[in-house]
C-alpha cells in the first residue's frame, strides 16, 4: 500500500488526537492483541464520532491500513466532507440506498479487504438514537462474512460516546470513553444468517461494561 500525502495524514492525526483528548479514550484489548492482521472491526453506532474514535484507538501503524466504511450519501455531499471522508479517513464509501445504487456495497468492502485493508463497520446500519442498547444487525455483516470467510470479525464495544455527543448536539462533553476489543469470530461452515447475526450481536453485547 502506498503511503498517503503528509497533509492528509496530519489531518488524520489532528482528528484522532482531538478525539482522544475529548474522550480520554482507553482501549481494552480483551479478546485479541492489536496486531496488523486482516480484520473487520464491527462496533455499536451511537454517534458520529464512533469511527473516528475507533480509528484513533488503533496503534498508528494499523490506522494506515484500516479503513472505516461509511455512507456515500453523507460523505459525498460537499467538498469538505469529501476531503475528510475520502482523504483524511481514507473511508470506503458505500451506497446505502438499495434502489438506485450502481455497485453492490458488499463487493466494494470485499475489494478493499482484498487490497489489504482492514475495515471498520457498524452492522446496525444506522446511528442508534433510541433507548435500546443495540439495534438489530442488518444482514450486511453476514454477507461480507460469506464473501470472505477467512477474515476475522472483531467485536468492539464503544462505551459512553453516545453521551459525549448525542444526536443533534453540537458541543461534545468531555466524558471518558472506553473501547473494548473482543475475541475474533468467523462464519462457521454450516452457519446460517440468523445464527451468525445473533452470535455477532451477542459477542458485541458481552463486551459492554457492567456498571449498575
Amino acid at each position, binding site marked *: 500500500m502506498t503511503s498517503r500525502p503528509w497533509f492528509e495524514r496530519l489531518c488524520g492525526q489532528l482528528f484522532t488526537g482531538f478525539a482522544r483528548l475529548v474522550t*480520554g479514550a*482507553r482501549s481494552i484489548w480483551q479478546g485479541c492483541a492489536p496486531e496488523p492482521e486482516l480484520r473487520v472491526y464491527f462496533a455499536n453506532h451511537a454517534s458520529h464520532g464512533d469511527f473516528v474514535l475507533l480509528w484513533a484507538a488503533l496503534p498508528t501503524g494499523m490506522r494506515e491500513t484500516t479503513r472505516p466504511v461509511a455512507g456515500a450519501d453523507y460523505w459525498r455531499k460537499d467538498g469538505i466532507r469529501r476531503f475528510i471522508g475520502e482523504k483524511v479517513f481514507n473511508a470506503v464509501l458505500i451506497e446505502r440506498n438499495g434502489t438506485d445504487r450502481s455497485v453492490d456495497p458488499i463487493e466494494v468492502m470485499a475489494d478493499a479487504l482484498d487490497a489489504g485493508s482492514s475495515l471498520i463497520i457498524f452492522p446496525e446500519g444506522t446511528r442508534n438514537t433510541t433507548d435500546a442498547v443495540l439495534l438489530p444487525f442488518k444482514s450486511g455483516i453476514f454477507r461480507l462474512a460469506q464473501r470472505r470467510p477467512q477474515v476475522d470479525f472483531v467485536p468492539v464495544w464503544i462505551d*459512553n460516546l453516545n*453521551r459525549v455527543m*448525542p444526536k443533534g*448536539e453540537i*458541543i461534545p*462533553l*468531555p*466524558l*471518558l470513553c472506553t473501547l473494548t476489543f473482543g475475541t475474533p469470530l468467523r462464519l462457521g461452515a454450516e452457519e446460517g444468517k440468523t445464527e451468525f447475526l445473533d452470535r455477532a450481536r451477542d459477542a458485541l453485547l458481552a463486551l459492554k461494561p*457492567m*456498571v*449498575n
Partner: protein
Amino acid sequence: MAPEHHTLALFCGVLAVLLLATGIGQLIARRTAAGGPNAVVQNLNARINAWWVMVGVLALAFLFGKGGVVVLFGLCAFAALREFITLTPTRRGDHYALALAFFVILPVQFWLVQIEWYGLYAIFIPVYVFLLLPVIAALRGDTSRFMERIAEVQWALMICVYCLSHVPALLTLPIAGYEGRGLLLIAFLVLVVQASDVLQYVWGKLFGRHKVAPALSPSKTWEGLIGGVLSATALGAALWWVTPFAPHEAALLAFVSCLMGFFGGLVMSAIKRDRGVKDWGQSIAGHGGFLDRLDSIVFSAPVFFHLTRYFWTI
C-alpha cells in the same frame, strides 16, 4: 531560616522522602523478585513513581505562583468532574446543563478565586448554580428521574469544583504577618492530608486487622486510620514553622484535616461501591483516577479554609 527559603526546604524534604520511598520500593521488589511478579509490590512502586510526577507538577505550578496553582487545581477539577459525570447516569436532557458545568461554571469558579472575589466564589455554585441548573434541565422538558439527575449534577459540582477550588482560595486569605506566603499554606494542607493517606496505607498494610467499614472499603482499617491520622498530625505539628499557626494549632488543624480527608475517602468509596467500580479512572498509574487521589483534599480543603479564615484572618 529566612521565610523565602521555607518553600525550598519543604520541597527538599519531600524529595528526600520520595528518594527514600523509591529506594525501599526497589529493595522490596528485589527481595520479592524470586517469588514471581507480586501485584502489591508492583502497585506500590507504580504509586511511588506517580508521586514523583505529582510532586513535579505541583512544584512547577508553585513556580508560576498564584496563577499556576489556580490553573493546576482548575485542571484537576476538570479531570475530577469528568470522572464523576462519566459514572453518573445522566440523560440526553442534561446535555446543556453538563456542557455549562464543564465549560462555564468550572472556569468561572476558578476565575473568581483568581480575582479574589470571596463574596462571589463562596456562593456562586451553592446559590446561583444551584438555582440555574434545574431551570435549564426543566426547559429541556425531560422529567424522568428529574430530581435525581439535578441533585447528582449539583453534588458533582460541589465536590469536584466548589470544594477543590478552596485549595487555591487559601492564597486569598489575608493573614497578618503571613503576607505573600499563601503557597506554603497550600503546601501544608496538601502535604499533611496526602501524607495521612499514605501513612494510613502503610500502617494498614503493616498492622491492619480490624476493618472500619467492611461494606465500603476492604482496605480501611482501624489500625491504619489511627496510626495514619496520628502520625500525619505529628507531621503537621512538626511543620508549624511554614504556617501562621503555633505548633499546637498546627497539630489541631492537621488532625481535623486528616479526619475530614479520611471521611472523604469513605464517602467517595460508598459512591464507587454503588456504581460498581473500584477506581474513578485509570489516569494515574497505581492510584486510579484523579478523584481517587483528590477525595481527601476535597473534603478537607473547605474546612481547613474556613477554620483558618475565621480564626486567623484580619
